[in-house]
């Protein structure tokens, strides 16, 4: 899967789960500050991403993930 396609897929999940506009989901966006996501939102987002990309994300891997870019890189690393 190429990077752009993957990011579109990522964006779709984020828009649906976080109930934000697509153009808000930029690589620099911070989940808490910019996208108004609380911890439950993030849990939901991870679940949606796991389903969408058919991957599994361990709790420990989410530590320190605060921006869209970090989350996206994590997802990319799991999609062969």
């Amino acid at each position, binding site marked *: 899967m190429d990077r752009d396609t993957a990011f579109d897929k990522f964006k779709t999940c984020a828009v649906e789960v976080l109930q934000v506009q697509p153009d808000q989901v930029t690589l620099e966006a911070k989940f808490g500050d910019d996208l108004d996501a*609380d911890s*439950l939102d993030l*849990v*939901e987002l991870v*679940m949606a991403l796991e389903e969408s990309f058919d991957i599994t994300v361990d709790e420990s891997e989410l530590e320190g993930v605060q921006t869209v870019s970090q989350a996206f890189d994590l997802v990319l690393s799991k999609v062969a």
Partner: protein
Amino acid sequence: MSPEVREGAGRVVLVTGGSRGIGAACVERFVALGDRVVYTSRSGGDEGAGAGPPAEGPWHIACDQSRPEAVTAALDRIEKEWGPVEVLVANAGLTRDGLLMRMSEEAWSEVIDTNLTGVYRLVKRVVGPMMRARRGRVILVSSVSGLAGQAGQANYAAAKAGLVGFARSLARELSSRSILVNVVAPGTVDTDMLGALNQAQMGELVARVPLGRVARPEEIAGVVTFLASEDASYITGAVLPVDGGLAMGH
């Protein structure tokens, strides 16, 4: 009526341990309210791919909540046929009574596995869709033993008390999604679980109850359906004793 609960509008209600006692009384009540009710028990019902829900009346699925794969399989089937569970009544439980000094590892872990860990498994599987729907009711059936203690039930009481801490933590975690998590703590109820006691033990038990009798299962079920109702929309993290006054003050 808030969008949060649609009482009697065919809500999907799951009652574990629903073939007897308190569970069966709950099933009956929810069916009478017009909800779509599915209940589990360790035996009876149909496990695995089996048939779908019946055309009428409650659906009975076999599920041993001490086995993770059984819980997943049961929920997958329910969601496939009816969609996500909107009201969960975690009622299934068992006892392995005995004084602590004689309580085997097995007697301890069996009770904890089914009554506490099994509930963790069940609730975890059910709340994901509730979170997405931004509404849900989770009602855990604890026991007066868990609050006041009961000689011969260290394992059971530990598990039942555990449900209180569990429920309250969850109530805090999920409140932002309008998922209400509450606990019902029945006293002595006229079910098979009481069948193990002899006349003398029964007499002694009843003598301690201010109301002077054991509860009928419907008297517990009524409180459960209340907690699932619109009238209980501001109640979360609560422990409601339904015990004829037995454990007053706990």
